[in-house]
Each structure stands twice: as structure tokens, then as C-alpha cells.
């Protein structure tokens, strides 16, 4: 057991008595009760557990808590306080989610993409978003919502 310190959604966090090898996904869900980050595969194959570590999207299901010392971790709960992130606004505007289970991961991956590319092309979207499975098949709406979020971020109404 160890104490691992990192920033979680903008606040200092000390993971005391954490099992160092435990993936961040399960630390968030079972130890902290933060259930917005979802379990899908456990092998970084589906993207449902995507969070940001130092601004990069990572798969929380294969990220040991021990690797986070000193880093900034953002989950869906910390993306915005009031669903006001442009990606969340675009997702709501276009009613992207169906069952909704994969959407935290989709939104986190899309938010990281937009932080690097203000105007992602369809090819950019394919390259980054292909790691996130949606079994409801909302891909067409996800693509449209990412373009819409780019508009919102760029100040277009």
C-alpha cells in the first residue's frame, strides 16, 4: 500500500492505501465512487474509460495509480462543472447518446482532440475516435457533434 499524490479534477488528491498496480479506472469507480468513467474491456480496446492525464487522453483501465504521481488527472466529472464544455454542449445539442454508456469516453477523447486541433478534419476524427467503440452506433452523430463543438469553441453560435 502506498500514498500517491496527484491532481484530480483540479484538486490535490492523495491516494492513500491504494494498491499501486490498481488501474485508475477501478480506483475512481470503486475506491472514490466516481462512476462517470466506465469499464468496457479492461484492455484498452474500447475507450469507455478514457480520461485525461496531463491533457492527453489515456485509457484508465490500463493506467496504474502508481504511474500518476505528480500528474493532472481529469475525468468526465471534471471536464466542466456544468456541462458547459463545447463538446458536452454539442453532444447535448445533437442528442448524440443512445444508451450513453460509452459517451463519457467518447466525450473525453473528443475533448482531447479539440484541444490539439481546433478544426479537426474527418480524417483527424477517424484517426483519434476509432479507438472508442459505440455499440449503439452513434458514430454519425459523434462526427457531426465534433464539428459542431469546433464551431462552438471557435465562437460560432
Amino acid at each position, binding site marked *: 500500500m502506498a500514498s500517491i499524490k496527484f491532481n484530480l479534477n483540479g484538486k490535490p488528491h492523495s491516494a492513500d492505501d491504494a494498491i499501486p498496480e490498481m488501474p485508475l479506472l477501478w480506483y475512481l469507480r470503486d475506491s472514490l465512487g466516481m462512476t462517470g468513467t466506465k469499464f468496457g474491456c479492461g484492455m484498452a480496446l474500447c475507450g469507455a474509460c478514457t480520461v485525461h492525464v496531463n491533457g492527453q487522453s489515456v485509457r484508465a483501465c490500463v493506467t496504474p495509480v502508481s504511474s500518476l504521481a505528480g500528474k493532472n488527472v481529469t475525468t468526465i466529472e471534471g471536464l466542466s462543472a456544468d456541462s458547459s464544455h463545447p463538446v458536452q454542449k454539442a453532444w447535448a445539442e445533437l442528442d448524440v*447518446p443512445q444508451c450513453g454508456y460509452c459517451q463519457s469516453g467518447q466525450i473525453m477523447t473528443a475533448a482531447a482532440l479539440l484541444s490539439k486541433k481546433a478544426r479537426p478534419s474527418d480524417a483527424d476524427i477517424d484517426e483519434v475516435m476509432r479507438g472508442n467503440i459505440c455499440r449503439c*452506433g452513434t458514430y454519425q452523430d459523434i462526427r457531426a457533434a465534433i464539428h459542431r463543438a469546433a464551431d462552438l469553441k471557435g465562437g460560432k453560435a
Partner: protein
Amino acid sequence: MSPASTASGHTARKSGFSRRGFLQVGASVSGGLLLGFVLPGGSRLSGQTIARTAGTAAIPDARLNAWIHIAPDDQITFMIHKSEMGQGTVTSLSQLLAEELECDWGKFRTEFPPVDIAFGPMQGVVGSQSIRTSWTPLRRAGATAREMLIAAAAQTWGVDKSQCRAQSGTVVNTATNASLSYGKLAATAAKLPVPANVALKDPAQFRYIGKPIKRLDTADKVNGTTKFGIDARLPGLVYAAVARCPVVGGKVVTFDDKRARAFPGVKQIVPISSGVAVVANNTWSAIQASRLLDIKWDEGANAAVNTPAITKMFADKTLQPGTVCRSVGDAEAALKGAAQKVDAVYHAPYLAHAPMEPLNCTADVRPDACHLWASTQMQTVVQAVAVQLTGLRPEQIHVHSMYMGGGFGRRATGDFISDAVEISKAIGAPVKATWSREDDIQHDRFRPASLARFSAGLDADGWPVAWMNRFACSSIQKSSSGQDPRNGIDRTSSEGLDDLEYEIPNQQVEYHWTETGIPVHYWRAVGYTQNTFFAESFLDELAAAGKKDPVELRRRLLAKSPRLLGVLNLAAEKAGWGQPLPEGRTRGVAAVFNVGTYSAQVAEISVVAGKVRVHRVVAAVDCGHVVNPMIVQQQIRSAIVYGLTAALKGEITLDKGRVQQTNFHQYDMLRIDEMPVVDVYLVPSTENPGGIGEAGVPAIAPAVCNAVFAATGKRVRQLPIRREQLV
């Protein structure tokens, strides 16, 4: 109209459990005022955790009927008895209720109710039935409640009902302009007799039905606060995973848990009927430790099962006559006299459902009550499983329905419920039992594998005159209920083959009910998932053999089926059927009538180095009266992705009784870069609604494979489409 979709007040209770979850409700659909509720000393959930405290007394909401409860403070609650798995029930059932109740959109909240006979003897969501079975009852529930509120207002004012009008959650006295809110009237209304016959609105007056109203549950799904089954939390909750026999149906003989016990976080090891459960203080430890168990298995009857042997068994059986499930004219004689004969054998593999939310259930079994939190498609199955395992009475089993992270038929089973119930009973504590993705794929109850043999005859002009079809498939009914199919025919095996709309004068369809030992179950669109691929592909073979255009052939055979002909023509027109395409692109078509809905799809594809790329799909759908066109279009796109995933990638194989695929790297899903543009066209209609969740699945595989034939001259008779078949 500006439906407010972001206010949290009317989204379905995040948790799905609340004081209403503990209401003891009567058996009548339109009961009177609820007189009180029982607090069983069990768990209550508030926000994210369940406080083990006695409930506080509160003024009960007036229960105008099973679906509509109104509180004195005007809070209207709609009970959504069809759980939400993305198909849109929270929104579309609310549209039916709000329309007739005459309350404003957004001025209500929704909740998933407990098991209640008012919602039918089989409370659940299967078979694309939610709208079909709710269309009249829920509008009637809304109208009945409205009339009772009007009667209560008339009684209060001492005026005739004709002087009262319901409007925006109030009843207005048209002579005085006085008004009373529904909340003030509800307690009185609930004591009034329930009117037997109430008038439903003229569809021309609809304010909500038929409109593309935004989903009520989106706001919570974009910030991670929606509570799926896997998100249930309780004080003192422990977490479990189960080591299962790698051979389907095998049992534990002995086990050594020394290494598992030593894993950090592990608390207990409990043998249960599905294997050996590891209980830990977190799910990860439970899953990891379950893999450290050293278990000696009795591999059972399936130890030698493999898929090539199953396919051969199906192929051999279909050489012999089977149980006749359709016979028109004299197919055998017509075949003998045909100018041209076409033969083909088609095959479809086992498929896993793979909903995004892995299976899970949270159970709290106590001596006098059992509480279950589950994302389930079948509340009554959950209850029945718990009754059987605990010995408690049905009214002591409390099913708290959670949002489902996908269902597709998988969540209509009880296997993931029994794990949690057995473990909680054994350890005397609340437990969340979660299946790993490997459990999900390897221990699914699969879409059945199937094989179909066809012989058809064409006349001298190339038109079909004889259709012979023998197929073999195991029975979902037998697998899920233990009951033999009546007269040897299970319609879940034969649908899509024994009910073709095409007018061919001589048809014979025969079924070989063939058990394989592999558990099978309903998979989104069920029998049509393989059978429409078979039939629509073979029909395309007949078009090619008879030198007919595939749309033209179908038009001729559908002359007496106007609605299927209508969607065929609409899809062909919108897809530009017959118009030139860019170099390398081809089109294929397929049509189907399933779940009460007519649909046709045209797929536009290219094949490069044996790899199929689907560029565009045009779907035309006639599902009768549309309740929410946006949701219908989303569901059709969703179903096309589901069916296309199977056509391009889906296959579960077995060797020595072991499923050979484990996770998404071996059982892959369609990704965004493979997503075609899908255009959905809805036929305006005033017919009763058809189903939608499954309507879009069957046609996509044959539409794509028929386009592949147009591109390559190679006929795909076995799914998934393999690159080596096309190069």
C-alpha cells in the same frame, strides 16, 4: 415547441430508486389513491449512495394509474415501465403520456417503477414492443387521468364537467377563468371512479406525438451522472467476479484458492453454481484474483464441441426433409418443371451480444427481503430468479431498474442476476458482481448459428416459380425456457424464412430443430438476423440467374404487398438506383418486414484488395405512426451499425467446447472510420406503430453482400464477409 432537455428535474431518476421504489402497489391498472407505502427496513438510495435508514414519512403522491403519479406540489411523475437501453423509451413513452394528460413538456419527471402486475405478467423490453404495446394503453392512461382531474375540478367547483378544460397541468373553469393545478386536484381525482371510456385526441391535434423531441436523458449522459446498473453503490458494498468453466456448461470439481486469497483486496472465496466467486474490496482485485484460482473442472457434455462439427451436422441434416413450416403450391413439382434451377447453401455463425456495459448486478439479500439493482430487460425474470434462489416471496424481491448500457437481448436473461444473489446470500452482505468482457464474450447465450439450403426454379422468362428451403438451427425457446418447440417449430429459428412477402407460386420451407449444446438467446432482430441474409441474398442470386434487375424482380414479387413495395421504391429512388456511380462503387438492395415494420435498404460499397468498404446506406422505413422521428432515425442507424458489425466482423467459434474469442481484439466492433453515411427516410403513415429497435438490423447484411456480388461477381454465402473470399 422548445422541449427543455437540460433541466434535471424531469430526467429519469439517476439512481432509478427512490421512495417510490418501495411503494406497495395493487394489481389494478387504474387504482385509487395510494394509501401508504411500506418501508421494508431495507436499502434506500439517495443520490449516489443508499443510506440504511428508515424512510421518512411523506405525503404520498396520488396514483392516478400505474403510469401517472401526481404530488400535491404539482410534481408529475411518469413511471417508465419499459427500461431505457438507448431505444428512447424514457422520451417516447413520456410523449404518449404527456400528450393526453395535457401537461407541458418538461413539467414532469420520469422514474423506472418496481415490478407491478399493472405492467403485465412479463415486465420487460424485448421484441421492439415498447411503442407497439404502449401506443393505446399509455395514451389512454394519460386521457383517463386527465378526465379524472377534470371531474375532480368540476366536483370542487360544483359545476358541470363540460365547463372544465385541461390545459398545461391545470384545469380551467371556462366560465370563470378560475383554475386549479393538477397537484391540488390529484388527491380528489384519485378517489373518483375510473371512467371506462375516454376519448383519445385526434392525431391532428397532437402537440408531442410525431415531433422530433429531444431526449430527456441526454443531459445526464454527457456529464457522467446517469446511473447504469454498474454504477449502483451501497454502504458496505463488496465486489465480486466469478471464475467460470472455459467449457460452456462445465462445473467445478475442486479448487485451490491459495494464490487468489493472497491477492491484495480479496476478502472471500465462494463457490456458486456458475463457478467460483472471488469477493474483494474492489472489482479489479476480484477479477485479477479470479484468474489465480486453480480449479479442476468437470467439462461436461460440451467438452468435444467444435464449430466445424456443428456446421457439418446442420449441412447433413438439411439434406433430408424437415418439419414443414410453410407450403404454398407444389414446390417439388414446380422445381422439376423449371426452365432453370439455382442451388445454394448459406451459413451464419454464432454471435455474442457484447453490450458496452458488461453484465452486472448488485444484490442485497436479507432474511426478509432482497433488493436488486440491475440494468435488466426483464424485471419479472430478475424477480423470478431471486425468488427461486432466496425462497422469499415475490413481494419481498425489490427490483430497482437502472439505465442499461446496451441490451440487444442479452439483458433479458437471469444468469448475471443469479451470480449476485447467490454471492450476497452466501456472504450476508450487499455485493456487486461484475462480468469481465471475457466472461461476456465467452459465456454469452449466443445468436444461434444456422445453415440454410435453397433450391429455386425459374421459368423460361427468368421469373421464379419454385422456392425450396431447408434450414437447421437450434431453438432459442428450448435454450431459454427448457420447453421443446411446439410441433418442432421455433419461430425464432424460422422467422424471415417462413414469412416472406414475395409472391412465388410454389414454396416449401422446412426446419430441422437441431440442438448443439451451446446456449442461444434472442439477439437484436433474432431469427431475421441470419434468415434475411439468407433469403435476400438467394433472391439476388435468382435475379442474376434470370437476368433481372434486383429491384425490378422484387417489385414484381411484391405487387400485392403495398407497404413493402413502398419502402423498396422509396429506398431505390433516394439511393438513385440505376443511376451511374463513381468508378469502383456498386449498390445492393434488400427488403424485409419484421417487428411490425417494413424497411428496405440500399448499400453503396467498394471492394479494394478484398476489403469491403460501405460508403453509404439509404434506408426507407414504414413503421406506421411515428412517435419521435429523431429517435426512429437514430435507431435505424444504430441497427444498421449492429448488423454491419456482424456482416463484416462477427463470429464466435468453439473448439473443444471453448469459445475462442475473448475480448474486442478478437471480437471486434465497427469503428467510426468504417461508418457509412446513413440516410433514413420515413414513410408518413397513420397505421398503428410498428417496432423500431430491431427493424433496421436484418437488411444491411444482404444489401452489402448483394452489392459485393455486383462489384466482384462473387457471392457471399457465409458471414462474416472474408477478405480471402473476394480476392
